[in-house]
């Protein structure tokens, strides 16, 4: 079964599909204003017409490619293609101005390749442990896990004001309650509208929040970047990479760990690894930091790529996506009736090995495709935003429609886009909404089951469920830490005003 799954990911057709996904991801990630999550959300519609394995390889290819792609525009035009490429932009563009843009990009390719490997190895190493532990989770623990996922996501998404992250997560939960209740079959918040009985399609919400909302926000803005004339030779130097191997391993571990925390994605990973890398750098290297340091590029790029493997860890083992991009992958899997979580190896034998292989294949293809696609990508930068983002609108429409062949879902996507735009204007994060929408059904069903089990029991009995009690303490810690952070932030701001 294991070998069969591995070989399936290596058939010529699947390799071609993965290469298409990787190439599309690199080009998409390289375009300023087009994020990884946007790519993943919009392409769920395209994957709807594929079989399970093809869709998985395609989506993993897009994920792997787009995370690296952000580095291209960051280095060449000083605009990060994806938010996590900001540290790479700070360092890489300085190098590009000195005529070392090609070498900086080569280093980013090598670092991304290593980062992906670290993430994959840690994913393979840790998943059996988490699965073995998670198999003992019952309703109470599953409810608390879902609650942790949503609240941690809120905390991580809005750094200075976790309250707004929690509100966003809670709004997502409310969206998910619409539809027929899973225990009694009672309609909830449907108001007699037939289409609402099936619930609100979260893929449409995803496309609206990360696709249309971005178009509404960015398209009306004017272009303001210049295109570089020359890229230079783009070949990763392994001698230089070897010099920064310590930073690479450290950043890989940081990236994977951050990826495993719900809501904390490549953005937090690359900034954290960049910051820790600077503190740990040798004095002569530290002096280059901010003025064009290769070690800084390695730190940031290894971390944001290792994040991919990390984000798959809670998604595959617990059904809790590590970030919005992983949530899109989860959505694509759900469309194929694949339910991930503690019983993944029982329900879908071999799938996990297929995913490992697909990740490895996507990483190897990313390495080659990145070298080939950098120069064409730089040419594509001459495409104005007005053209590029306009072309995304029909993809949003088809993507939302393709899931259930329903115009109602297209309207849901449109409404979600407007909501996403307004939330952005009011400075609310949008990623926790997705976590809320995905995890609320899990929370709802398990919460009520747990209450039934605990109906005649004392508080002492509830607390004697030790895993649940530890998880309950984690929930309390998340909220207390968040409130303390808000207070600290407010005091700092007041001090700043005085």
């Amino acid at each position, binding site marked *: 079964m294991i070998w069969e799954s591995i070989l399936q990911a290596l058939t010529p057709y699947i390799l071609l599909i993965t290469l298409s996904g990787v190439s599309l991801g690199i080009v998409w990630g390289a375009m300023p204003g087009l994020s990884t999550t946007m790519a993943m959300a919009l392409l769920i519609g395209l994957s709807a*017409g*594929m079989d399970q394995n093809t869709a998985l390889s395609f989506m993993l290819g897009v994920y792997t490619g787009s995370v690296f792609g952000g580095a291209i525009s960051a280095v060449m035009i000083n605009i990060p293609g994806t*938010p996590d490429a900001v540290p790479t932009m700070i360092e890489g563009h300085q190098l590009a101005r000195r005529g070392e843009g090609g070498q900086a990009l080569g280093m980013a390719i090598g670092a991304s390749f290593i980062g992906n490997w670290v993430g994959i190895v840690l994913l393979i190493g840790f998943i059996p442990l988490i699965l073995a532990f998670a198999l003992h989770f019952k309703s109470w623990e599953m409810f608390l896990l879902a609650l942790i996922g949503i609240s941690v996501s809120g905390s991580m*998404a*809005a*750094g*200075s*004001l976790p*309250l*707004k*992250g*929690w*509100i966003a997560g*809670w*709004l997502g*939960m*409310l969206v998910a*309650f619409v539809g027929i209740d899973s*225990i*009694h079959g*009672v309609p*909830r*918040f449907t108001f007699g509208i037939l289409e609402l009985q099936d619930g609100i399609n979260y893929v449409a919400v995803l496309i609206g929040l990360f696709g*249309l909302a971005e178009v*509404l*926000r960015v*398209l*009306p*803005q004017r272009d303001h970047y210049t295109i570089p004339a020359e890229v230079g030779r783009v070949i990763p130097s392994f001698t230089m990479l070897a010099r920064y191997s310590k930073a690479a391993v450290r950043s890989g571990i940081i990236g994977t760990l951050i990826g495993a925390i719900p809501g904390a994605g490549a953005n*937090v990973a690359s900034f954290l690894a960049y910051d820790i890398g600077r*503190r740990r750098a040798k004095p002569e290297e530290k002096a280059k930091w*901010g003025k064009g340091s290769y070690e800084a590029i390695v730190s940031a790029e290894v971390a944001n790529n290792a994040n991919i493997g990390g984000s798959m860890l809670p998604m595959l083992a617990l059904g809790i996506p590590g970030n919005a991009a992983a949530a899109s992958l989860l959505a694509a899997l759900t469309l194929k009736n694949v339910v991930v979580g503690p019983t993944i190896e029982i329900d879908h034998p071999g799938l996990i090995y297929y995913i490992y292989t697909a990740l490895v294949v996507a990483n190897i293809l990313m390495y080659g495709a990145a070298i080939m696609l950098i120069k064409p990508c730089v040419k594509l930068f001459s495409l104005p935003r*007005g*053209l590029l983002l*306009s072309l995304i*609108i*029909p993809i949003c*429409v*088809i993507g939302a429609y*393709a899931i259930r062949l329903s*115009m109602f879902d*297209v*309207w849901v996507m*449109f409404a979600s886009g407007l909501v996403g*735009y307004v939330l*952005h*204007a*009011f*400075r609310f*994060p*949008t*990623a926790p909404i997705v976590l809320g929408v995905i995890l*609320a059904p899990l929370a709802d069903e398990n*919460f*009520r089951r747990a209450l039934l089990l605990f*109906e005649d029991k004392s508080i002492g009995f509830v607390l004697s469920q030790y895993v649940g009690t530890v998880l309950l303490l984690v929930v309390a810690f998340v909220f207390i830490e968040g409130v303390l952070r808000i207070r600290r*932030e*407010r005091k700092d*701001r007041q001090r700043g*005003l005085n």
Partner: protein
Amino acid sequence: MTDRQHFSGEDENAGFASPGQDLIASAFLALLSLWIMVESVQMNNPGTLATAPGLLPFLTAGSLCLMAGYLASLAIRRHRSGATTVPVDEQPDHLRTLMLVALIGVYLACLQMISFEYTVQLDAMRLGYGAFEVLTIIALTAILLIFWRKPLLPCLTVSFLWVTLLAGVFRYVFTVPLPGSL
């Protein structure tokens, strides 16, 4: 980056808005959560309280109401301490955004109401061109004219080629039907 800095979070834009904006948001959230709480209580419950369909929605809305209250209190305190605006990197152009929203809204309404498809039989293959293609080309051309600011012909050409390619991929490669098609 400085040695001591705040944790900026995954979404760099997220955080404090102006106190006025935060107050508006909290008022809206409070109203929304109160409405959901009322709806949850009125929900039909065939079982016990433990399995009531409205239980978690009620608790979620209740806690959301508390969060809205906390957000409002923070906004009021910030307003009193003199915080008015929060610097943001981007300068949104609301008029152009509104225009874009209106265009997309009209386009979707047309897509909802108009359905037709012209088909050509080529051996075993049936090629179709329907309401989705026609309406999308018109809408996309209009959007390109406004935001790309090129003459009609390039906008129409790009729009035609892109929509035909996209529709072709979905119709014939992934066999996904398109909206507005019969």
